């Protein structure tokens, strides 16, 4: 009986009622939240050159999105500390469902699917205790919440699934917030960010911290290379007069390595990296600073600075087949921003912080 059911299920998937794929949504290469001139928020799909394929409404300003690996659906997350996360059908723009957060939790802006797309993991704050949490949602059962476990720190922000399809990398930014005080940072003197590797059942596999001198360097965003190397981006919360490195690298079981750049190059970032992405074809990582108005490229293998380009209010970045694509608050998408002839597309929106690549990391 079990076998027969499996066969029927297989037939369904194979052709009797063909499952819809990202090709049906116009084969977008990227997703990004954006704000329209009238103040309404949307989730947009872009092709690999940055042209817009679709725009689906969101209830409020978004932050990041997570794209299902196979089905043309994406989860759009509220700007921190938000309570909405919508599963958007990218074919018709309808909301398939809304993630139902338990009382006492709020989202922290990011989420990641397991490699097979069966589970979604979301970063959350357990408000009462200020402990960082990972919420687990079953995408096969209407995104029902099936559990939650510790993120391994305070203030988890970004979360990514490693190429094994199971291990989660979590950026515990270390910053405690409370809904009552919005985005106010409540624990700067005692903050202790970390990068945690977490099994899908919540087991903490490994935790990595920076040297004590960088205790106030909030580890907030992650990008994963095809070989499992993790690049992480930081936001400095210490004295604004100091300029520590804001990009680091790690591999499970290995040691942390910080990016090497001249002091003037680091200063351009104004203490703040908003997003980062890996390009395996370029063997490089790109970091963006909207405050410094700059995108910088570093070698993935050696962590050394390669080149940079000025671009006002740049934040979203993703690696694609044609190199890096970046977005900014002026509505521009720029392909290969550090190249002599960057490809710029102007849109009548303000792009939000994160540009999400839909292609598998290895294809990037």
């Amino acid at each position: 009986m079990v076998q027969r059911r499996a066969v029927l299920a297989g037939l369904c998937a194979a052709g009797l009622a063909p499952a819809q794929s990202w090709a049906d949504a116009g084969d977008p290469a990227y997703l990004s939240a954006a704000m329209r001139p009238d103040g309404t928020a949307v989730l947009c799909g872009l092709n690999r050159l940055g042209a817009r394929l679709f725009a689906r409404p969101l209830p409020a300003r978004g932050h990041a999105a997570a794209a299902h690996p196979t089905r043309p659906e994406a989860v759009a997350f509220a700007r921190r500390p938000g309570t909405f996360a919508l599963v958007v059908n990218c074919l018709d723009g309808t909301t398939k469902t809304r993630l139902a957060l338990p009382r006492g939790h709020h989202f922290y802006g990011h989420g990641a699917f397991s490699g097979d797309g069966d589970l979604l993991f979301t970063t959350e704050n357990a408000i009462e205790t200020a402990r960082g949490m990972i919420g687990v949602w079953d995408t096969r059962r209407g995104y029902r919440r099936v559990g939650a476990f510790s993120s391994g720190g305070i203030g988890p922000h970004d979360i990514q699934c490693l190429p094994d399809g199971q291990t989660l990398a979590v950026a515990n930014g270390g910053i405690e917030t409370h809904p009552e005080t919005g985005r106010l940072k409540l624990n700067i003197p005692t903050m202790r960010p970390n990068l945690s590797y977490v099994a899908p059942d919540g087991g903490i596999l490994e935790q990595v911290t920076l040297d004590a001198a960088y205790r106030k360097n909030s580890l907030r965003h992650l990008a994963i290379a095809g070989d499992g190397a993790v690049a992480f981006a930081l936001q400095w919360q210490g004295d604004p007069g100091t300029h520590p490195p804001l990009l680091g690298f790690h591999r499970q079981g290995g040691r942390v390595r910080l990016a090497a750049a001249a002091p003037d190059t680091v200063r351009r970032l104004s203490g703040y990296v908003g997003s980062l992405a890996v390009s395996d074809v370029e063997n490089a990582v790109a970091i963006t600073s909207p405050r410094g108005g700059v995108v910088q490229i570093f070698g993935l293998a050696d962590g050394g600075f390669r080149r940079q380009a000025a671009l006002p209010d740049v934040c979203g970045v993703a690696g694609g087949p044609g190199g890096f694509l970046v977005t900014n608050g002026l509505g521009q998408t720029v392909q290969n921003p550090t190249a002599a002839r960057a490809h710029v597309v102007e849109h009548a929106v303000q792009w939000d912080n994160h540009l999400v690549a839909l292609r598998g990391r290895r294809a990037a």
Partner: protein
Amino acid sequence: MRLAMLALVFLATAPAALAVDLAAIVRDHITPRYQALATTTALLEQQAKTACAPQNPPLTAAYHRAFDAWVGVSHLRFGPSEAEDRAFALAFWPDPRGATPKTLALLIRNSDPVVADPVAYKTVSVAARGFYALEFLLYDPQFAAPERPGYHCALIQAVTRDIAANAAAILDAWQDGYADLVSRPGNDLYRTEVEAAQQVFTALSTGLEFTSVTRLGRPLGTFARPRPNRAEARRSGRALHHVVLSLTATRELALHLAPGNARLIAAFGRALDRANALDDPVFAGVADPPGRLRVEVLQQSVDAIRQVLRQEVGPTLGITAGFNALDGD
């Protein structure tokens, strides 16, 4: 007050000439204010040593004078105030989790001997240090009538000693080199006058944002749910007074950055007039619509100052604010 609530973009193309007298800012605004903080906190420590009963008038008078001096520098969140988390240790607020009363109660319950050792007291959570902790010890019903006056006295003495030491350390660091770094850029910290002026502008903007969003916004809450109990230092009746003090201090600094700017002078004048006319010292009025409206109008007048700064003063320093740059995440 907490750091970096406001993000600003520093344009790559900075203005060629700068009309800001950085030396005057340090000499006439920053240094005298930190001197006042050091002096008043030293007196506070002395008063607590002499007589530490919570309702002792010389002690509470010294508390008010020193707290006034703190609010007058609470916008200057860079450099010496940030080293060793001194400013956090002077001013842990807001405190949505109630960490201050919890930590103080724990010290008292355990009769924690840490109060006897000034060096060790620096290891205590910042929630139990500084002016807001002292306010609890002097004014909150939970603490102000202590079961064991001896320990309570030692705790007050430890907190005031720690406040005075932090204030002295900040002043020392300014006088011991940091003032020169800001006054005469062209050093590793501030390579140009524009960089130093941008730092001062950021401090000013962040200070005004804190007054609007936190000092006024917290008690306002929402229309459906006003939160008068979240007003700053309400136990000692200081909430509105802090708004007046911080507006006065930020006006002084703003007019160093934009001397004679008529719109700025008018905007500060309107906000201060409204604050002075409010007659609601702890914003208790937010609980009913007419009182709430008056606090909202005051908040709007603070936001009007911020807008003038953003639109007229920031650009002269090569500063603009962007969609993502302001987002901070």
